[in-house]
Structure formats: C-alpha cells, structure tokens
C-alpha cells in the first residue's frame, strides 16, 4: 500500500506541474530569505567581534560621557594632563595614547581624498595593534614640536600615491604640507563598512594646533600583560573621578571600556539587526505559506472532486490521506532543500560582497526546513483530510 500510494503521490505531483512548482516556489523563497538574512547577520556580528579582537584584548578606551559614540552629553573632555596622570600613576597601564580625531581632505598633486585624521603619540601604534609596512613612526622630538609629519594607512596611500612608495612624499592637509614618514600594515575592512586603513596619523600636537584648535582628547590605554584588566579599570576610574572632582554619591561622567564591552556594544547592534532581518524574512516565509494556502484553496474544488473519484472507485480514506500527506511532504521538503541550497549560494555570494565571514548555522537551516515542511503539510494535508472524510457523493458533487 505504501509503495502504491507513493507512486500515486509522485504521479500527482508530476501531473500538476504548475501547482507543484508554485507550491515549491513559495517555500523556496521563504526558506532562502530567512536563512540568508540570518546567516549574513551572524556573519556581520562575527566580523565586528573579530575586528574588535584585532584591536587586542588588553585595550582600554576612556571617553567622556556615559554614551558610546559621538557627543559626550556635556561631560568635560580629557586634557593632556589626564593622560600624564594615568601614565604616571597607574602601574598596570603599559601604553597611554591620547587620541584626537577629525576628518580632512588630503591632497597629493592631482589626487585628493577625504579621510579621518588621528592625532596621537607613538604609543598609539602598539596600543592599537598597528604594525608598520614601511618607514617609521614619529619620534618624541617630532611629537613635542608638533611637526608636520604623518603615518598613513594603505587606503590613503592607494588614493594619493597609487602604487608608489609614499614614504618621503608630501601630502597637503588643509593649509599645511606634511611629510609622510611611515606606512601602516593593512588591517582590512570592518563589518560596519568601515575601512580601518582609511587613516592618517599625526603627532597629537600637530592635529590640535593645525586642525582642531582645541585641547580635548580621549585616551587609548593598553594594559600590561601581567595585570588584571578589571583592576586597572578600577584604578583608572578612581583616579579620574578624583581628578574630575566627582562626589561620592555622583555617577561617573566618563567611561572606561575594555574591548569586550566595546564588542558587546557593537555586536548588540548587529544582533538586533540580524533579528530584524530575520523577522522580515520570516514574514516572507509566512507570505510563502499563505501563497501555498492560496494555491491549495484554489485547487480545493478540483482536489475534492478528485478525492470523491478516488473514494468512489475504491480508495480507502487512509490511502487518500497518505497520498496527500506524501505529496505535501515531498513538495515542501523539496522546496525546503532547494531553499537551503539557494540560501547557501546567496549567503556565500553576499558575504563575499559585504566582506563578512560565511558561518553555516545548522539551527536556522533546520528550523526553516521544519517550518516549511509544517506549512506544506498543514496547507496541503488538512484540506485533503476534510475532503476525504466526506461521503464520496458529497466530495464528487463539491462545487
């Protein structure tokens, strides 16, 4: 009976190619959308946390205000004196780099490029896990004098110098001309679409005097290997509270964040994004399901009469049901499998395009597959169950 019924089910699928195709299509689109969205979202999250761990796990960032991101919410900025205080008084702090950021257009001959300019000390490079591809970092003399020298990232070199060696060359930043003394090793693209190599680093004083005209800074601190990050954070917090005259009952007006916290802040954003995309895609899976339901309902008259015919010529109710169940399962499984294949292809392609890693997520593949199978069975099987329970004559007469 099983074999015969399987045969009947496959015949029926082949016979109604258009209906079968549309059913499969609905499932394929839904499943592929859900899996692709979630896979890309996971990839983006992974990419963000990879990028942050490339900053080094021993890194602390100190910013004014309680929010991460631009704007300090009225909290006073840090000054060079704060940097010195941390450097001198916190024994666990290996490197303390003051950081000032701005953006500017840089020019070399006919080429110009808008990039971000960071002012810091030579401590910036080891603290941020940067290595040199060519040339050198600035010396203490250059730092103190606020000399017009700079170290550039790979992207800036490409835009301004093409394939030439930039070291020894000159770039113009706003009104002044600046000697390129070093080239950074490429770190690649980040998940947020941020190109880490699109950077120009100058001595802190140069940027403060010539570009931003203020003394405000943030701090990047690398912690000595042997010291506990939490202990160092604690010490820095206490020191800065004292320097900023924060009373015992008052909250901090600055944040000391380690890479884990930065990672959490950033990945929570991409995780929310993943969930949103997944939800949108789930809607498409639902729409696919409704499409299937539509196809089934449109064909329900024909199918009910078909069931009437089968019952009349001697099919048992359970044989009819089994046939329809097999049909539904075969169609929706096929749709699910094609959807998974399509999603894998699309995810690989889009992940490559977006520069995020492709991470196969068995759970979402399985859940989407089961969901599609359930939709197929519910919408394909239950109308049939109703029809097969009728008196044959009522099924035959169905209009």
């Amino acid at each position, binding site marked *: *009976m099983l074999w*015969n019924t399987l*045969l*009947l089910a496959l*015949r029926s699928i082949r*016979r*109604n190619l258009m209906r079968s195709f549309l059913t499969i299509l609905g499932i394929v689109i839904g499943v592929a959308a859900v899996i692709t969205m979630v896979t890309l979202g996971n990839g983006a999250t992974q990419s963000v946390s990879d990028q942050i761990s490339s900053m080094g796990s021993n890194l602390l960032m100190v910013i004014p205000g309680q929010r991460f991101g631009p704007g300090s919410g009225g909290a006073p900025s840090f000054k060079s004196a704060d940097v010195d205080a941390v450097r001198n008084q916190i024994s666990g702090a290996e490197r303390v780099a003051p950081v000032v950021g701005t953006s500017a257009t840089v020019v070399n001959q006919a080429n110009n490029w808008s990039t971000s300019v960071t002012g810091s000390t030579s401590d910036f490079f080891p603290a941020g896990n940067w290595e040199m591809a060519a040339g050198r970092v600035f010396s203490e003399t250059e730092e103190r004098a606020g000399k017009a020298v700079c170290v550039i990232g790979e992207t800036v070199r490409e835009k301004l110098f093409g394939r030439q060696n930039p070291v020894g060359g000159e770039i113009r930043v706003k009104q002044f001309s600046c000697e390129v003394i070093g080239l950074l090793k490429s770190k690649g693209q980040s998940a947020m679409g941020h190109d880490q190599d699109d950077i120009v680093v100058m001595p802190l004083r140069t940027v403060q005097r010539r570009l931003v005209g203020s003394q405000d800074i943030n701090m990047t601190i690398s912690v000595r290997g042997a010291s506990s990050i939490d202990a160092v954070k604690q010490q820095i917090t206490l020191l800065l509270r004292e320097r900023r005259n924060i009373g015992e009952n008052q909250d901090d007006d600055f944040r000391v964040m380690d890479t884990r916290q930065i990672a959490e802040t950033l990945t929570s954003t991409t995780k929310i994004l993943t969930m949103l995309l997944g939800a949108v895609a789930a809607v498409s899976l639902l729409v696919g399901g409704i499409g299937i339901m539509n196809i089934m309902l449109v064909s329900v008259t*024909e199918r009910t*009469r*078909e069931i*009437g*015919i*089968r*019952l*009349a*010529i*001697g*099919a*048992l*109710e359970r*044989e009819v049901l089994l046939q329809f169940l097999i049909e539904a399962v075969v169609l929706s499984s096929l749709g699910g499998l094609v959807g998974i294949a399509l999603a894998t292809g699309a995810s690989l392609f889009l992940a490559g395009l977006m520069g995020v890693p492709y991470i196969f997520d068995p759970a979402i593949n399985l859940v989407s597959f089961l969901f599609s199978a359930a939709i197929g069975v519910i919408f394909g099987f239950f109308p049939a169950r109703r029809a097969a329970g009728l*008196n*044959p*004559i*009522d099924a*035959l007469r169905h209009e």
Partner: protein
Amino acid sequence: MSDSALIRLSGITKTYGRGQAAFQALKGINLSIGAGDFVAVMGSSGSGKSTTMNILGCLDVPTSGSYLFQGVPVERLSRNQRTLLRRNFLGFVFQGFNLLARTTALENVELPLVYRGEPAAMRHAAARSALQQVGLEDWEGHSPAELSGGQQQRVAIARAIVTSPAVLLADEPTGNLDTGTSREIMELISAFNQKQGITVLMVTHEPDMAKYARRVIRFVDGRVERDSRDEGGV
C-alpha cells in the same frame, strides 16, 4: 422475490437537511434486483433516482431502511468496509464522466486496480484490454481534455468494468451525449451485461435508451411507482 437477490432494498428513506429545511427525497423504497439483470431507472427530475443510485453504490447512506448486498446488511458495515464493497463489487459511470484531469486514459482505467494492489504488469494488461473492449486502444496516452465526450464516457466505462464488478451503476451515462454517441455507449453497456453477466442499473430520461434494459423501474416523488417486472415484461 427470492432471498437470493443480489440487491434488496426495503423501506429505504432519505431525508436531506434537518428541522424546517428537512426534505424527504426517498419515502420508502422497496426493490430487489437479481444477478445479471439490466434495469433502467426512469422518472421525472427530482424523483429520487440519483439518490437511490448513490445509496445502492454506497456513495451515500440512507436515513432509514435496510439494504442487503448479496445478503450482507450494508448499514452494518463500517466506512472502510463499504469502500471495500465498492472496490470489489461495484463499478460506476457518471453523467459527468468524472475522470481524473491531466491523467492519461490508461492511468485512469488502471486506478481501481492500483487500489486493489494489483502488480503493475497485470494492471497494464487489464487496462489495455478494457480500453480495447470500448474501442479506445489507440487513445490510451490521451488525457480527458484531448478526448470527446463519447470517448471520455467510454474511458469511464472501461474504468468501471476493468475490475469485472458484480454491478455497474450508471447515472444518466448518456445525459451529456448526442443520440448517435448515446447509442454506442448503450451498445457497450448492453454487451458487458450480456457477455460478462455484469448486473446493470442505469438511470435514463430517454425511452430509447431504456429499451436496452430488460426491466424498467419508474420513480415518482421518492417512490417506486411502476416496475415492469411486476407487469410481466417491458
């Protein structure tokens, strides 16, 4: 009337709907049909012919009364047992053909054998032979949409007789066909009755078609009004 009758209906009633809307379509049918007979059922529209045929074919259940098929009380059978009765003893021909769409003539004729669990080789041979008997051996690969009404009805007849049923139930088999084609269909049905001894019950409006039968039963308003057998022949 002997107890050896193939089919015996006594006091069969059928009421559609309930309460205010209830309508009694059959008001007590008593009928017995012997094996090998060819019975035409006539009567005006709405007189209960189809309702009776559906009950005889176990496609529908009566409201009350008793139905013996080869001495077996059908009303005591389960739904599945009634299906098996259809599968093993009955063949149907409907006014509207009721073939499976987008399905070849051969596959349509094979279908009852599939449900009987016959092996593929036997199914093909039997279905081909049945199509040959209705003169459609060259049309086995065609689907209903590619066949004329008369051809479709012949496929339906082939499907009905491929299992060599005890009874062939035909509800206005020529109702949708022109006179010439109707005659061909009647010749076929008549031949199966005579050569294979298949008992035939056939509803028809046309006296011309009823002439092929040996016995004519006339329905009026949910009752058997006249039975030619009781009057000693057609």
